[in-house]
């Protein structure tokens, strides 16, 4: 049987309408909890939710929701690859930041022109992310170091190396902001004016995020490697006796997870700020963990989760107009993740029993009572 951890990390599938019902219930439950907290602090919950919805429905906010959601989504994909086989890559955060620093330095140097520079920047980011994650993989495989510990430590090291690189090699002082040299305009990825009523453009990286989501699905569900990865995640002992080398799988999965992490900083670097400086977003790797849990590592679930998360983050400012602390949104996000995990667990238990019932019923029907020994005919 699967452990609770397996189910929490979505290595066990949920079928049919239950897969939809569980997260919906969880969101409703989170709204109830948030209402209670709002009431306790003397605020009107409906007013707050209404303000969030109103603000979120504005074209301008919709664009920022999609753009932030794109980054969240890629981060969730990077985390989910590890989750699918029992690897906790907590280091996605460090991997994408270090990848972005190095890629920003290379891109700023404008070694190649135009589109080639875009490709170069992305390739460098992916390679750096993969290599940085490989360190944790190698430590786990050769020395048995838990990747949870090593990736958390590597996050700090990545921060240090990033600052050092910017300060000593890539940095250019503009005003009082120290950042990498801006990537030339011919290597900027254009946005798309998808949503009318605002000057803001949807990041071109939305397309990349969709491609990555599809690639994630195909890799896991349609390839031999994906099968081996899922098998190892579900039962390492069964994988071992089936000729799958757990060590090889750990290292490869860490590398792929890190490579995916390399993409996270690209929308910001190539589509928005064009440089890595003190304003570069941090913490996306941790948001990815929450969204991977929320979306149960499924490509569509994580997309919805990323948009929901992004909506809450982007709309929270409006609450301050109602004199409500914007941190109420953080409470809501936390409760959503917790209640989603609980809801999935309940649904899972229900599903297992239901399937066993169904199997015994279907077997009993045409073949007589043979399969339901001992039960009354």
């Amino acid at each position, binding site marked *: 049987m699967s452990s609770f951890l397996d189910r929490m990390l979505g290595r066990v599938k949920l079928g049919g309408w239950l897969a939809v019902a569980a997260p919906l219930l969880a969101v409703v439950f989170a709204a109830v909890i948030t209402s209670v907290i709002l009431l306790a602090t003397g605020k009107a919950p409906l007013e707050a939710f209404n303000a969030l919805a109103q603000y979120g429905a504005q074209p301008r906010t919709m664009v920022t929701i999609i753009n932030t959601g794109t980054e969240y989504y890629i981060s969730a994909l990077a985390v989910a690859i590890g989750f699918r086989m029992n690897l906790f890559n907590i280091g996605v955060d460090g991997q994408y930041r270090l990848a972005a620093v190095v890629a920003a330095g290379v891109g700023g140097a404008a070694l190649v022109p135009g589109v080639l520079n875009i490709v170069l920047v992305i390739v460098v980011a992916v390679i750096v992310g993969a290599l940085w994650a490989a360190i944790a993989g190698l430590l786990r495989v050769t020395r048995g170091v838990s990747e949870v510990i090593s990736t958390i430590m590597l996050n700090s090291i990545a921060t240090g190396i990033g600052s050092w690189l910017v300060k000593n090699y890539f940095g250019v002082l503009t005003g009082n902001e120290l950042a990498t040299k801006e990537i030339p305009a011919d290597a900027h990825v254009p946005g798309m004016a998808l949503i009318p009523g605002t000057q803001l453009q949807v990041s071109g990286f939305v397309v990349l995020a969709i491609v990555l989501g599809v690639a994630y699905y195909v890799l896991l569900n349609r390839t031999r490697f994906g099968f*081996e990865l899922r098998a190892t995640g579900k039962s390492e002992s069964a994988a071992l006796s089936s000729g799958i080398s757990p060590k090889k799988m750990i290292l490869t999965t860490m590398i792929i997870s890190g490579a995916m992490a390399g993409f996270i900083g690209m929308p910001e670097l190539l589509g928005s700020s064009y440089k890595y400086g003190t304003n570069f977003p941090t913490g996306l790797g941790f948001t990815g963990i929450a969204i991977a849990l929320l979306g149960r590592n499924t490509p569509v679930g994580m997309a919805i989760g990323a948009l929901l998360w992004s909506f809450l983050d982007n709309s929270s400012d409006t609450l301050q107009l109602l004199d409500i602390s914007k941190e109420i949104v953080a409470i809501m996000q936390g409760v959503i993740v917790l209640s989603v995990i609980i809801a999935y667990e309940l649904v899972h238990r229900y599903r297992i029993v239901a399937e066993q019932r169904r199997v015994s019923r279907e077997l009993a029907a045409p073949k007589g009572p043979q399969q339901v020994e001992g039960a009354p005919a």
Partner: protein
Amino acid sequence: MGNATGPLVYCHNRCPPSGTPRSKEAAITTATANEPAVELAGITKRFPGVVANKDIDLKVAKGRIHAIVGENGAGKSTLMKILYGMQRPDEGVIKVDGSPVTFGTPGDAIAHGIGMVHQHFMLADNLTVLENIVLGSEPRKGGVALDFRAARKKIKEISDTYGLGIEPDMLVEELGVGDRQRVEILKVLYRGARILILDEPTAVLVPHEVDELFDNLRGLVREGLTILFISHKLDEVLQVADAITVIRRGTTVAAVDPKEVTARRLAELMVGSELPSPETRESTVTDVVALAVRDLRMGASGRSVVDGVGFDIRKGEVLGIAGVEGNGQAELVEAIMGMRPISSGSITLNGRDITHWSTLKRREAGIGYIPEDRHRHGLLLESPLWENRILGHQTRKPNVRGIWIDRAGARRDTQRIVENYDVRTPGIEVDAAALSGGNQQKLIVGREMSGDPVLLIASHPTRGVDVGAQAAIWDHLRTARAAGLAVLLISADLDELIGLSDSLKVILRGKIVADIDPTSVTPEQLGSAMTGAGEGA
């Protein structure tokens, strides 16, 4: 002996309570012994998809060892869980000492003096015997302090009364298996149990420990305790029990007197028909060696788990390895599968040295593997059957095309296995976990037989499966053997070993200690060889 129907009482619907004395010897017991310690009437428990209990009737006389026998999956465990308060019956009455009781939790059962000694020990190695025993019911002194002195005294008393010989201050990790079991028993007695349920207590013991256990049990009943002894090892049951109840397909089918029944007859009662015979007819052994193992050693020198093992298996030959569990069989199998490093020796498959090959390469070269623990090593329980078909064959047709999983091919071939191997399932999209043990095992056998294996390693292939599936699996093994498959068979079922094997080797402490001719050996002789009595044979 005063019983017109002979030694056995058959009953189709309801059984007379088995504790009722039928022999003269039983009849002379005192009145208190006649009052049942435990009485179950009409116990029914329904579960989806698994064997439950139906109309269980059981009377256990006070101060007796009452054995409950039945096949794996016959419903013994469910019954015991009901009696121990872990499951609630849907219908029926439980009476303890004559008064009806309902148990919601094991705590309720203990309060009524019913204690359970589990098959797998639940002891913390790094605590002392005393600490383990008081864990969960610590004696208090002045509200907070633990009163170890009182506990030690009580443990000593119990140990002396029943002759258990337990030293309260030993660390559990220093104790042997038999001692640990006595600690488990003492733990239950400490909580005030007067009725002990022992679930397969001999499964983990070697023969002389079994004898010690039986001496202890006799000591316990002499002091007035009642013991419910769950087992499927019939010889042991006949040796120790005062009364036997047979469970088949979830219901009590016979109450027998151990003095008047043979092990074979008891087995037939358990199975409900003539025993299916594992016997193979004519020899199909060729002179082509499929697997050659030479001087295999595993583990550090001095503490070898496998020590200089060597054998050949020819095409069409079943080589059986007999041995008490834990004598190196599991390690040997994992060495041949390439799952565990070896210290020295060589393994040759079809003339090719595979000693340094990976598990995958060995599988691709034609080794099929029915693992001992199908849940841990054989299946992805929460994946559909067709994904389980791919497992272990994830590099081969019809499951893959290049780097891609061939879903259609895998599904088609899963359907073939389901049909040819009679896997009872509503479809190939259900999770493996939804199938019964026997059907899971048939799926594994079907999978491992596909792709033309050269060698099949069958580790306890029929453990925990029902008789129907067992007969089917034996059939498949025989057919494959006739088609030239070499089979390495590891089993704890001596009849299975003797019946299926063309040659038999006995493993003891990692060494092959005897070669035995399966055509002339009896299970009793084989059993004694396994404990070392046959050394030098």
